[in-house]
């Protein structure tokens, strides 16, 4: 058998096949993370920070009110009852607000869930600060139990004036198996 280098056609094919592999991986290892980094930096796709926000200057803007709408949904196959106690709040930018979401596990077994937030309009995401959120941690819940999950947030004073309504959506995912695996591997 000849070496690859002896055969110019085989060499060309090997190089081109490498390009194909590189471009396929490029989608997963470059495009997706790069997109997330860019969106994060520019604050454009409605993802809020997963970190606790430390309020710096507290100055309540009494001149305007912003309507906050809450939406709770379950991902496919998630059996929990999951809903906000209030579907709508009117808040002043800068003020600290509290609300509570309810969750109930209707199955007789222990489960762990994780809520993923999303803000609409996307432009509002960087002005929506959560000082306390059940989405920062996962939510273990015993069989047939229910719980109240607190959310504390501040709408930034710098929120553009044309945004009058912000929708905060949570989707609840069943991560029981992932959580069990993590425990088992520890």
């Amino acid at each position, binding site marked *: 058998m000849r070496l690859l280098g002896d055969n110019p056609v085989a060499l060309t094919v090997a190089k081109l096949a490498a390009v194909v592999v590189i*471009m396929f991986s490029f989608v997963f290892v470059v*495009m997706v993370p790069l997109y997330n980094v860019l969106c994060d930096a520019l604050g454009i796709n409605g993802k809020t920070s997963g970190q606790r926000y430390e309020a710096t200057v507290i100055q309540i803007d009494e001149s305007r009110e912003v309507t906050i709408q809450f939406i709770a949904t379950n991902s496919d196959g998630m059996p929990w009852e999951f809903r906000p106690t209030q579907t709508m709040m009117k808040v002043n930018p800068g003020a600290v607000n509290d609300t509570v979401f309810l969750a109930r596990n209707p199955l007789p077994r222990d489960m762990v869930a994780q809520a993923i937030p999303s803000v609409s309009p996307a432009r509002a995401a960087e002005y929506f600060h959560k000082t306390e959120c059940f989405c920062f941690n996962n939510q273990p819940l015993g069989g047939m139990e229910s719980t109240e999950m607190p959310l504390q947030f501040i709408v930034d004073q710098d929120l553009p004036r044309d945004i009058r309504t912000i929708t905060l959506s949570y*989707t609840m995912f069943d991560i029981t198996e992932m959580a069990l695996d993590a425990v088992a591997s520890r």
Partner: protein
Amino acid sequence: MGDHHHGPAKGLSRWLFATNHKDIGTMYLWFSFAMFLVGGAFAMIIRAELFQPGMQLIRPEFFNQMTTMHGLIMVFGAIMPAFVGLANWMIPMMIGAPDMALPRMNNWSFWILPPAFLLLLATMFMEGGGPAFGWTFYAPLSTTYAPPSVTFFIFGVHILGLSSIMGSINIVATVMNLRAPGMTYMKMPLFVWTWFITAYLLIAVMPVLAGAVTMMLMDIHFGTSFFSAAGGGDPVLFQHVFWFFGHPEVYIIILPAFGVVSQIIPAFARKPLFGYDSMVYATASIAFLSFIVWAHHMYTVGMPIAGELFFMYATMLIAVPTGVKVFNWITTMWRGAMTFETPMLFCIGFVVLFTIGGFTGLMLSIAPSDFQYHDSYFVVAHFHYVMVAGAVFSMTAAVYYWLPKWCGKMYNETMGKTHFWISFIGFNVTFFPQHFVGLAGMPRRIPDYALQFADFNMISSIGAFIYGASQILFLYNVIATIVGGKPISDEKVWDGAEGLEWTVPTPAPFHTFSTPPQVR
């Protein structure tokens, strides 16, 4: 195997185990024509439904399947394989090579295509119907809300992507390694040049398409959330990945068409191509620019203003190399001893109509006005001017131009010219009014529309039936030529034609250039 030449095998095995570039090229061409008729039949169903406002013939869900399948079949089943077939036939003959560099892979890259399209077409008979999310298959329409058959669609796209990648690797390997002595890069015919660059585009972006559908597959079956905002992903990411493939894809379709036109116009103007070097550089520039303009398909998703401006200016920049090409074609014809045989008519039709499509493309490139035109029939009119009057007209011209060489028989010129004029009129009657309904606000991909669009839609439908019928004439002419055309034996079928493919006997023998020619 001895030194003696051997002819083709007999019967079915000639085609099933074909490794000859001419046989494989022929199979590609027939396959793509069959797909062209299938996709065309779907278009006829669409136009029949849109003949009058209101729901007349089919249900909206089926209408959505028709628009989706029409787009997928035409792009991946008709236009792309047609040009691959042409590349198989012509590239070895144009560069003085005995065959493609990888004949067995060539066989495989053709034979996985029919199963891919059978799979795609079979989805229409499955529960929930076939893909109904548009040929761009935006998530979440193609993930969360897709019919169960979407998995077969994904597998089909994987297979046809593999076929395109193998075909392109073969073309690059052939062009780089099998050129006859003296055939330097800057002496290669433009059809070879444009395909060489197209093959690189395909190798770069078909894996991206494969990545996009793989992510869809994972979202649907393996619990990931690449495109689901609910799980921390983003549906807009899908559009970025898709168009990062999709924009180079439109140049993959049109660059070989540029190559064909650059071969045919000099032959019938009886002058060498004006500005050969600038044609090569313009092709390369278009290929490069195609990678940095993808987001002009998605101005309305909510990009930062800097993004809108970047993609707008970059898109407008493409008009420069494209303008160079149109200028060169016109200058080639200028004061040439022109005759107007069928291939030339289709090429002139190409230059005129492609330029109109280019201008509407410029209108669409302007971000602020695109907010008005986005997803309207104006877009439909634009891309049919470049896809049909661009790619399909040039492909038709290529068949008329080289068919006498391939089979050693002359087609019926009167029938060819009739085909051109019916096509040209039918095409314009179909798509020109779509500019008006689009600007007036008719959205694309809808089975029913507001009453004020009724007249133009009826005109459009009548044009579509005329255009569709003219393709039957084309099919008849080709078959009649092969079966009982007037035999010819001149090596040069057209007196103005230049190039190595015209130095071999007519009809082109099974094996050509077993000993390489010397190119001066």
